[in-house]
């Protein structure tokens, strides 16, 4: 006995076959091949046939400069410290600093936040979230290594040695930091907003494992500036 619920698919199949047969009967061989190709393309569309091929991120290596948006960035190293200048972590945590040389290669000044968006907080590295219990990680605080002052503007043609700093959980005990550098794309006109002429943080362009040097035992709370730990390592 034929089950009632099978009637639907059978009917649809028979109808489809009759339509296809009726159409194909009037076609030449070339037309049938072309129609078949089109049908195949339509059939695979839902499975990502037209999606852009995912770009493989290039390797990020310590000491090797990379170009990202208006910046040339050379990540030198990563280091942890109990505190960095005025940045003091919660008890049990420590500060994580990524030391990099950054040059604005453009003709106009760029904001420090643009650099922060190019080097987001490392994932799976115990970075303390912006708000407790929420997944969003904070942007880096950018400190000038030489004097410990905050940098908000990067003028063209000068190379700043900076530390990008996040608070890190004391429970993280890795020896290599999974760091990513994001491509910055210039948006001349933003059709979705009023903010024309800005850098947009796009896809990950570079990623690599940067060795982390732990805080030196002699690191003292009174040391001034981010130069402290990063330079001692």
């Amino acid at each position: 006995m034929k089950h009632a619920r099978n009637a639907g698919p059978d009917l649809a199949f028979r109808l489809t076959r009759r339509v296809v047969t009726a159409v194909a009967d009037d076609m030449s061989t070339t037309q049938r091949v072309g129609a078949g190709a089109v049908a195949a393309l339509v059939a695979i569309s839902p499975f990502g046939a037209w999606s852009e091929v995912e770009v493989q991120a290039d390797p990020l290596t310590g000491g090797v400069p990379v170009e990202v948006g208006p910046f040339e960035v050379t990540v030198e190293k990563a280091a942890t410290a109990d505190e960095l200048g005025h940045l003091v972590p919660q008890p049990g945590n420590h500060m994580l600093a990524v030391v990099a040389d950054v040059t604005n290669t453009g003709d106009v000044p760029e904001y420090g936040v643009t650099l922060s968006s190019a080097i987001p907080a490392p994932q799976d590295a115990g970075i303390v979230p912006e708000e407790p219990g929420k997944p969003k990680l904070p942007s880096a605080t950018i400190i000038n290594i030489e004097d410990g002052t905050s940098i908000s503007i990067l003028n063209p043609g000068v190379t700043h040695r900076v530390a990008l700093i996040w608070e890190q959980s004391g429970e993280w005990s890795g020896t290599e930091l999974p760091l990513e550098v994001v491509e910055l794309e210039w948006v001349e006109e933003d059709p979705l907003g009023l903010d024309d002429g800005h850098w947009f943080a796009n896809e990950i362009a570079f990623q690599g494992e940067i060795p982390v040097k732990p805080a030196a035992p002699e690191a003292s709370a009174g040391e001034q500036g981010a130069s402290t730990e990063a330079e001692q390592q």
Partner: protein
Amino acid sequence: MRHGRRRITWKGTALVVGAVTAGCALVTYLPQDDAVDAPFIVEGEVGQPLDLTYAELTVTEVRVADVLTSPAEAAAAAGTFLVVDATWRATQGETTFSGAEVTDEQGRRFWPSSRGGCSTSASAQPGYAWRTTYCFDVPRDALEGATVRLARGDQTEEHGGQRRDAVAVVDLGITASEADALWKAAETVSPEAPGYPPASAGGSEG
């Protein structure tokens, strides 16, 4: 009196569509007259008072510094700090002077730093001179022929805040040989806090 419903005719529709299309085309394709939005540039030199209608401006001194010191912090330059002392005198009302930018001979633009006790803007009451110090971290090749652009409108958004307004462009007077000497000099400068200049500099005058 009977009001009949107006009929939509092909002719009327064509006229409306044509007018809208022509308007869009005019706005899109006709070149916009830059002169309409261009600021009024007032050029000058160091020490020369400039009349910007809303204020009188004098760039009083130009120095360089490797390090800036203030009671709060010391700031080291990545290149060198081009330190520009200026005196504003608002003439119409309380005015905030937001625009400060250095341009070099290559057309590169540099914005001031707030590190080391420097100002990025100034605000002054009318009739009184107000001294302020701007510090720009610039590379060596930006010194020669550099000019400073000061105004009440800010320089972000391609000088959008300075449209149809007076802007001072002051030649800092740095020659090639001076640029070399300035770059090599290791100077530490402590910028004075913004305020009224001494009476000898005209600060007490109303």
